[in-house]
């Protein structure tokens, strides 16, 4: 393709730009033994930031032994820290058994064992002797406990601080089904998925991406259902990422997608845990990124963007109807304005006579050609939509009032545009809100403009040629090796059961052709496969009796 050298050049530049001075190095540098030097070094590396809390004190059991607790304010749960310090470290002499005291005074290193094994009130604590890993843990919100003249430190997981609670999803709304959504904390998001898939086969791998941000990124898949080759490919692409910062899953999406220049999204993202669970059961892989509720799902196909979570909870007839409506909506967004332009500028003979007369009467006073009129209105609509997204909530009323009155009524009354054009544009606008996968709507909205140009120059010929090119482009796309337009092209008869249609759960279902050998699927799509569950419970009953 024409873009390839360009892309390569960008990639090269990116690689050069990354200077590792800023980042953390993954070398095995041990910790200092001397407590004062440790504290000084931490202070110096973090630039004496006031949010580093360093508490040094002497332990009761061994008065000459100095201990330091270091953590970041705001990243840790203060109550838990106080609890931990009070109960674990400052415990009273008389609570201790004497035998321990004697052994401890003989060996300073043993104090670690005491803290680790007996005293620590933290669930997740581990011993560590690596400076960089310690620093990363500290900056992630863990607390570090240092003992003077001892090797290493103890890292306790007391992460906390302010975080958004699990709320209702704001972008993917539905009527029936669970109402929880992801938030910005990866741990919470993982637990939301695990709660839905109580299977030991739900495997997860974590890595840190971003030289400066050190963002936690996790791959999640169902072992045995997701194809190993696919997991390996995702892992490889994530490992290849060299970038300073990952602030949102969009960064990851951009860096691992198959093709950079295409108007179509090659990776699906969702903020609904039930959607992730459903997709994992189909053999797909989820990539969770810390700091964002938007979780990536791959590989992605075109038809996925037309499936709402609710489709699997509602009645089949209704689901199929709604999906047809959504596909219709997609074509309306892409084609309706251009169709209107084509018919009114090139193919008058295709309009029924009464309608043609009506249209002509409307167009009489309008000073612009149809294309310009349409372009004007579509641009105005896009402006309003963008304003509606970005504006402060308080002025929302003003914008919508002005938009509706000025762009609708007043424009028609002033004779700038025809009423028919307003109808076409608003219908297009409404249709663009029908799709559950919002990212695909943006593609349709973008493509609409070239379509309009093609329609105004070549009429239906232009529209159809554009459509052929678009379909050709779509068929050439792949997402992690899976053809984007499957199961339509290449056509898979078996896989039509969950493409436009949705077969009832009673019919034997198959997974959507992503998995290798195991095509059979038990009858329930979302939730734990029923047959497994039944087997387990029946076995359990047998054991009891």
């Amino acid at each position: 393709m024409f873009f390839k050298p360009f892309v390569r050049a960008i990639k090269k530049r990116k690689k050069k730009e990354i200077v590792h001075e800023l980042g953390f190095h993954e070398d095995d540098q041990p910790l200092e033994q001397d407590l004062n030097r440790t504290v000084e070094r931490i202070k110096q590396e973090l630039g004496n930031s006031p949010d580093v809390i360093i508490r040094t004190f002497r332990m009761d059991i061994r008065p000459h032994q100095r201990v330091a607790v270091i953590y970041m304010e705001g990243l840790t749960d203060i109550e838990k820290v106080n609890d931990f310090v009070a109960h674990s470290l400052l415990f009273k002499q008389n609570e201790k058994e004497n035998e321990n005291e004697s052994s401890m005074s003989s060996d300073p290193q043993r104090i670690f064992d005491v803290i680790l094994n007996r005293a620590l009130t933290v669930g997740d604590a581990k011993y560590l002797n690596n400076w960089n890993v310690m620093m990363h843990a500290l900056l992630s919100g863990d607390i570090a406990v240092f003992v003077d003249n001892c090797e290493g430190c103890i890292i306790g997981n007391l992460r906390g601080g302010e975080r958004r609670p699990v709320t209702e999803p704001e972008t993917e709304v539905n009527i029936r089904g669970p109402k929880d959504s992801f938030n910005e904390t990866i741990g919470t998001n993982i637990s939301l998925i695990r709660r839905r898939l109580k299977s030991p086969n739900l495997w997860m791998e974590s890595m840190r991406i971003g030289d400066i941000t050190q963002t936690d990124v996790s791959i999640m898949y169902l072992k045995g259902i997701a194809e190993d080759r696919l997991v390996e490919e995702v892992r490889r692409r994530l490992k290849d990422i060299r970038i300073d910062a990952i602030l949102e899953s969009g960064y990851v999406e951009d860096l691992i997608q198959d093709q950079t220049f295409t108007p179509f999204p090659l990776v699906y993202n969702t903020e609904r845990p039930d959607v992730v669970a459903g997709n994992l059961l189909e053999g797909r892989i989820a990539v969770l990124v810390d700091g964002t509720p938007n979780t990536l799902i791959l590989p992605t196909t075109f038809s996925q963007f037309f499936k709402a979570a609710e489709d699997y909870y509602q009645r089949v007839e209704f689901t199929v109807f709604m999906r047809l409506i959504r596909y219709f909506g997609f074509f309306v967004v892409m084609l309706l304005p251009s169709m209107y332009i084509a018919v009114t500028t090139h193919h008058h003979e295709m309009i029924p006579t009464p309608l043609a007369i009506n249209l002509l009467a409307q167009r009489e006073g309008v000073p612009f050609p149809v294309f310009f009129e349409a372009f004007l209105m579509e641009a105005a609509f896009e402006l309003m939509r963008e304003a509606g997204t970005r504006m402060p909530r308080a002025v929302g009323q003003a914008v919508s009032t002005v938009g509706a009155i000025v762009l609708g009524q007043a424009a028609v009354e002033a004779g700038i545009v025809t009423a028919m054009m307003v109808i076409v544009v608003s219908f297009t606008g409404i249709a663009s809100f029908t799709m559950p996968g919002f990212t695909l709507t943006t593609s349709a909205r973008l493509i609409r403009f070239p379509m309009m140009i093609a329609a105004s120059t070549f009429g239906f010929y232009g529209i159809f040629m554009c459509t052929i090119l678009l379909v050709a482009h779509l068929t050439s796309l792949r997402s992690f090796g899976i053809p984007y337009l499957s199961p339509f092209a290449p056509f898979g008869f078996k896989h039509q059961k969950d493409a436009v249609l949705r077969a009832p759960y009673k019919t034997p279902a198959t997974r959507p052709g992503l998995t290798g050998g195991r095509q059979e699927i038990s009858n329930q799509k979302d939730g734990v496969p029923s047959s497994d569950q039944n087997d387990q419970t029946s076995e359990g009953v047998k054991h009891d009796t």
Partner: protein
Amino acid sequence: MEKAKISPGQLFILILLFDMGTAILRVMAMSAGKDAWLAILLGTAGGLAIFWIYVSLYRLYPELPLTGYIRAILGKGLGWPLGLLYILFFIHGGARDLREGGDLLISSVMEQTPIIVVNAVMVLSIVYVLNKGIEVVARTAQIFIMTIAILGFLSIFLLLFAGVIDISRLLPVMGNGLGPVIQTTLKQTIEFPHEEVICFAMLLPYLNNREKGIRAGFAAVLTSGLLLSFSTALNIAVLGIDIAGRSTFPLLSTIRLINIGEIIQRLDVFVVLTLIVGDFFKVAIFFYAAVLAAADLFRIKDYRQLVLPIGIIILFVSMMISSSFIEQIEEGDVLLVTVFLWFGVLIPIFLLAAAGVRKWFGSRP
């Protein structure tokens, strides 16, 4: 050669679109009068025989495209120039269909657009798609065959409900005896569109399943013959032999007659879509065959380098080929029994015979 593979189903769809591409738009075999549909049916039998020739050659050299086995059979000295002629044949075929599609478009829906612009848009689009490879062409065809099938069924039902079909216009069957039918069959319907399937001799090595692919090919030739016969019969039954015979674009005239309660009417878009899609794939296959042949003969590793140059040649040839649509049609009838007959039937028969002789001598000690 690309590494791509096409499935038997995709071959079926490509041949079907290719055969019907431009043929379905016109009423063929008008010299047989009301029995045109019969002549087309008989012609299909001939088409199957022609396809059998290609398949036999393919079975002998399953790894090689047409230009490859020409050289293998006739030797380099004779085979290479013949291959070169085939490139010209493919370019010419593509240019003719491009011109025909452009002319029909202009005469039906875009009276004021210069034909070179229409053709240039078509060629550039095909260049884009061919650059992406045969797999993309095949998958795109899969999407559009569904669209056209739906529109076709819809049109037939609407024609039925509109009450414009009058079977009596087709009667009497063989009113003038068998003579004109046989004559038309031999002169026209065997040759068109079945000779042009020679393009697929360049594509058959891409098949991922040989035996199923061959069966799919025969099925496609048969299906397209039946559909063409049906559409011709439908056109005559709706328009009557006089109008159907004189019209340049009878399918459009037929569809325009649909008017159900002043609500469902003016379905010209259906025909325009069929015209554009059919023409697109027909030109694309000719074009692709020419590109593959050239890449094979001149040993060019990446055929993509040739797509744009050959596309420009096809565009200009399509402009120079004739001065008007009438001339184009007149030429077509002559070319059908000369150039197309030679390249589509006689040379392949000769090749098959030569290969047979070669094998016979080769197998003897």
